[in-house]
């Protein structure tokens, strides 16, 4: 059975890729399966939990609700792309120090949401942090340590 594919070009974490993809493939599946970037997670596949959050063209989005073909020509940043040459991003350090990750499954999406906040608002209040991560569900921490980590990372930057 012939399957139509489309050629797309996308930059992920600074690397350029050119691939043939099925139009119905989600960006999340593309990142995880085609590019083997398994840091971004699927928690619900319905845009409710935020575990698949990435930053595309500077915007925080849920990759499970984006078709790969929509990402043609776009710049994407995932959790794998935020540390620099073996140096952890301040958010990653802070999450580690403050116990802001327990099982770690929501963590990549959560860090991307926190990064999106700090990129736009370098000195957020605790309340702003809570709003910024409202689309990222965590079942382990109760969110308190995550807020502490983001505020700590903001101070460090």
């Amino acid at each position, binding site marked *: 059975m012939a399957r139509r594919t489309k050629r797309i070009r996308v930059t992920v974490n600074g690397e350029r890729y050119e691939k043939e993809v099925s139009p119905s493939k989600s960006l999340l599946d593309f990142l995880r399966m085609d590019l083997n970037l398994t840091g971004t997670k699927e928690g619900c596949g319905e845009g409710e939990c935020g575990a698949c959050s990435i930053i595309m063209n500077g915007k925080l989005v849920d990759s499970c609700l984006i078709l790969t073909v929509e990402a043609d020509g776009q710049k994407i940043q995932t959790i794998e792309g935020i540390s620099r040459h073996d140096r952890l991003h301040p958010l990653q350090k802070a999450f580690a120090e403050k116990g802001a990750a327990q099982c770690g499954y929501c963590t990549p999406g959560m860090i991307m949401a926190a990064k999106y906040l700090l990129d736009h608002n370098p000195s957020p209040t605790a309340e702003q942090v809570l709003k910024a991560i409202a*689309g990222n569900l965590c079942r382990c921490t109760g969110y308190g340590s995550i807020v502490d980590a983001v505020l700590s990372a903001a101070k460090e930057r």
Partner: protein
Amino acid sequence: MKGIDYFAPPRLEEAVSLLRRYGKKAALMAGGTDFLLRLERGLVQPGVIVDLKKIRDLRGINSNRAGLKIGAATLMDEIASSHLIQTRYGILAKGAAAVGSIQTRNRATLGGNLCNASPAADTASPLIALGGRARIAGAKRVREVPLEEFFLGPGKSCLQPNEILKEIFIPSPVQRSAGSFQRCTRTAMDIALVNCAVFLSLASKGGVVQDIRIVLGAVAPTPVRVQAAEDVLRGKNPDEKTIEEAADCAAAGVRPIDDVRSSASYRRAMVRVLTKRAIEEALREAGGEA
């Protein structure tokens, strides 16, 4: 989902043409936050996806003396954070800000929210309250429909096959007008169990309500204006008793259902509570005394 084709035309005419060519096999998408769910669940099985995001004509927030034009593919986030909309058409900014999470609002579009036609759509009630009009592009011409006639039923808008929602127009607010947008939810991040948008204007002096629109969402097959409730307040300088009467009227004028989210009776009770709050807030904002 096998063998789907995908087009992202840069011009509106091309999109319309694609719709004509592929007919029932074609599905429109913009932000995709509703569309991908329907695709995933097999509720829609298109042979061709027509993505509207590249069409410049469908984006943008433009204001002049007559009013505000918002392209249908404008993002929720753009609307929620637009200073212009926040200050002059505040209830629309509030409605847009209530749609999902940041992640959702960075993809979801105004047009998508309206064309998805959920009775709970958070941009629908404010737009109807503001007297918004939908401008719809088809093969022949652009037609204009008041938002309150745009919705026909749950999931059904008045768009004909081969029509694309192009933009929303909102007339400039008159002097001494203000609105309020209220929602009732189960948790902070939630679809509305009930939403209520009120927009009113006061006479040039004093507290008499010159005009008012009261719109309720998620309590009928479409977002619904309760004119009987509006009539209670129009031409009056409302006191608490009048406001309560209007709220009672609103509660009587809706047809909520029981569903997994809420019972009909709770929704009806919340209509009363939210309508009262919305009227009071709108009056305060407009400069009157509640």
